[in-house]
């Protein structure tokens, strides 16, 4: 009968993490490629945990904005790092959920006993972004490349028109709606009546929490400086409601007539460059290496919503993913000591919490008998989140997993943390960590 039994699984341990400080777009890291940043981040992790020259069973990472040359980004980064060159690697991409998804993939292989150790990471640059040529020009260039005679080549070149030369710059917008992510989020904020002031308050708290965490040395074993930057460039320790109140709304284009925008450059995350990595392992491997176990990855869930035709907000998928994961684990929303809700925009965090508190929404959309209820704000994003740190898309998951694991460990055994990350394409990735 043994063959019919579910294979025994174990919970993957989070040993620790590393990231480089996040830089504002076209600034300190303007000349750094994804591979540069991911390699430096892996090397910082290697140094923190004494892994130089050692083999890790698998490295999984990704980037949202990728050059064509980055097809094997993670493996190339591993080859350039201090890890043993026999360390396998592969790339993943799930928009802003990439980093967390990578951690889930590594954790699942550890849970199944397929690997004993792994590194999950993510990197993004909006400075060294890939530029593409338009489809017309691209087709001509391809035929030019395959032309066999001089005549054919000249023919191909003759088809090029000046208007084709303009490159296609990657934009932070949804291909199916043409709206910027911020414009989608502003629609959701409007629908959920999320006020300007509460968004600004959440923003100030994010900056203050993160500044305080830096001051008490919380990031000493989570961050390694890069290119002369030692702290997140976007962090404004002196951020205040007064300063934020002066900023103009920037995402109100898609709002109905007469509606006022509430989202500004202050309460939205800026484009950012950076990378993060997390070391996961079986408890046994960690013990053999003399490394700590900060927390375990207990469970994870993804969800997606139809934001194109379904009438749901682009960034609302985590709202759906969380109750499913809670039910599977027999937990309520209040059974957590820390909550990490990715601050893509302050309004996203607020709309997410408001939706969980709304009986009608929870019943109709989530199919729940009762609303999930509210969460204790003092347990939310306690060392700041993306509004303060910035949000290099694929790097956010690793930032959150490592910081939360450290916080849970410091709080003592049996503490639980919830991670919720929204992603482009109407997707969401959520997970539970436990110390």
């Amino acid at each position, binding site marked *: 009968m043994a063959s019919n039994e579910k294979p025994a699984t174990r919970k993957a341990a989070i040993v620790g993490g590393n990231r480089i400080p996040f830089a504002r777009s076209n600034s300190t890291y303007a000349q750094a490629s994804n591979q540069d940043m991911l390699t430096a981040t892996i090397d910082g992790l290697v140094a923190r945990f004494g892994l130089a020259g050692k083999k890790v069973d698998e490295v999984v990472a990704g980037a949202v904005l990728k050059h064509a040359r980055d097809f094997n980004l993670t493996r190339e980064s591993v080859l350039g790092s201090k890890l043993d060159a026999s360390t396998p690697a592969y790339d993943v991409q799930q928009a802003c959920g990439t980093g967390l998804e990578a951690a889930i993939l590594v954790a699942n292989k550890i849970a199944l006993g397929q690997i004993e150790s792994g590194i999950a990471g993510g990197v993004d640059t909006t400075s060294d972004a890939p530029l593409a040529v338009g489809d017309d020009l691209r087709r001509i260039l391809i035929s030019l490349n395959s032309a066999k005679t001089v005549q054919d080549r000249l023919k191909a070149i003759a088809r090029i028109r000046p208007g084709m030369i303009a490159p296609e710059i990657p934009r932070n917008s949804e291909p199916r709606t043409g709206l910027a992510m911020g414009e989608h989020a502003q629609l959701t904020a409007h629908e959920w009546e999320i006020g300007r002031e509460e968004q600004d308050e959440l923003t100030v708290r994010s900056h203050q929490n993160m500044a305080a965490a830096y001051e008490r040395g919380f990031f000493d074993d989570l961050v390694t400086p890069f290119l002369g930057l030692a702290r997140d460039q976007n962090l404004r320790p002196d951020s205040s409601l007064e300063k934020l109140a002066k900023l103009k709304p920037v995402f109100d284009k898609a709002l109905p007539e007469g509606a006022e925008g509430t989202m500004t450059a202050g309460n939205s995350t800026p484009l950012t460059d950076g990378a993060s990595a997390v070391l996961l392992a079986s408890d046994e491997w960690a013990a053999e290496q*003399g490394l700590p176990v900060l927390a375990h990855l207990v469970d994870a869930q993804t969800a997606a919503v139809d934001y194109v035709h379904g009438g749901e907000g682009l960034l609302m998928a985590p709202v759906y993913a969380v109750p499913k994961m809670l039910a599977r684990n027999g937990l309520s929303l209040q059974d957590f000591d820390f909550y990490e809700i990715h601050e893509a925009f302050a309004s996203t965090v607020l709309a997410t919490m408001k939706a969980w508190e709304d009986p009608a929404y929870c019943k109709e959309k989530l199919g729940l008998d009762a609303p999930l209820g509210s969460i204790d704000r003092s347990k939310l994003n306690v060392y700041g989140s993306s509004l303060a740190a910035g949000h290099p898309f694929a790097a956010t998951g690793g930032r959150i997993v490592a910081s939360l694991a450290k916080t849970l460990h410091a709080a003592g055994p049996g503490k639980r943390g919830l991670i919720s990350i929204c992603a482009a394409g109407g997707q969401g990735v959520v997970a539970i960590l436990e110390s």
Partner: protein
Amino acid sequence: MADWYTNFANSGFGTTLTKQLGLPRPAVLRRYEPGEPLLPGPVVIGSAGQGRLRDTVAAVLKDAGATVVSPVAADGSTDGEKFGAVVLDATGLTSPGDLVSAHDFLAPAIKRLRASGRVLILADPPQTADSPAQAAARQAIDGLVRSIGKELLNGSTANAVFVPEGAEASVASPLKFFLSGRSAYVDGQLLTLEPAEVPNGEDAAKPLAGKVAVVTGAARGIGAAIAEVLARDGAHVVAVDIPVAGDSLAKVANEIGGTALQLDITADDAPQRLIEHLRERHGGVDVIVHNAGITRDKLLVNMDAARWNSVMAVNLQAQLDITQALLDDGDILKPGARIVCVSSQSGIAGNRGQTNYAASKAGVIGMVRAWAPEFAERDATINAVAPGFIITEMTAKMPVGTREVGSRINSLQQGGLPVDVAETIAWLSQPGSAGVNGQTVRVCGQSMLGA
């Protein structure tokens, strides 16, 4: 590796020119390379009086692979094989009259000393002499060895070790250090040993195998060199530096297969965080090298409190706090632990514009001396190393005149390298160095400053 002038003075044209002009002719120093023999030539051992260490010394050196030969005739002949080292056992001195035999042995032997040769004199400490005449004879070694150091040419050095009764087992480690290339830039030094339980069976190539060593200020310069040498000698190095230096710290750690710990050692909770890290990762620590240091130079009359306080906090108070916390913890310091604190020539000689720095570095010397008995009770040691003019990124920024003068006013006529400081620290960190405690060893090429 050597400075431009040393390279020039050792080139074909440079040799001719410097000889004709009577300019300093610094030698390219013999430095330790793993796998090389202890000495490039035989060692001659002689005695002044009824020495008690001759046989011990011969046995140790033979065991280390050296060829030991008998004293040469006093006829002044320079023929025959050149010596790699000259060792005088002067433990039998009873009065100044015995010293002439030191002269009779040393003069012909030193004539036949090779380049980067070594002169080492072993004697009883003057403090334990039975009579003023005996104390005088023992103290005379001080002037003798320092003068030999100044007379020697071609990168050769002279040092002395005072060996009290009962400390015979402690001799092997300093003996091998002073004769080897590890002590290339240690010259004119007088070391006093203590009786101690000296473990044996040390792997000569990896004397720190299995040890866990912490090096503060390891991101660059001398600290990075210390980390490298400790790792080369077999230790797992926990490289510590302030978080903003984490980038280069990670590179140092990865280069040597160690680990990086970003920590501001002046933070209130720094000792506790360091101890927790060591306990969690390694279960304890064998070697602590307090190397982190800063300068905030200003003339005393122009110095503000911030400059004074920051230098004191990093260079002295952090060493005190971390060491005290390690002692208080009970079991984090493993048996036979070694603490090595980096002092400075400024702390001995003083330096214009460095009242804060010199005070902090002198404080380090007082600290290790005062702590030595408590460490001895635990079969552990605490010592200091005082670098002289060491060529680093920091000295590269000095005005060329200041730098050239600073690097020439020593018996070896050149600045030292970070590795020279590192070798001395690695030696003090060895289990076999149990008999060296509370000492401050200068790595200064016998600098004229503060000597």
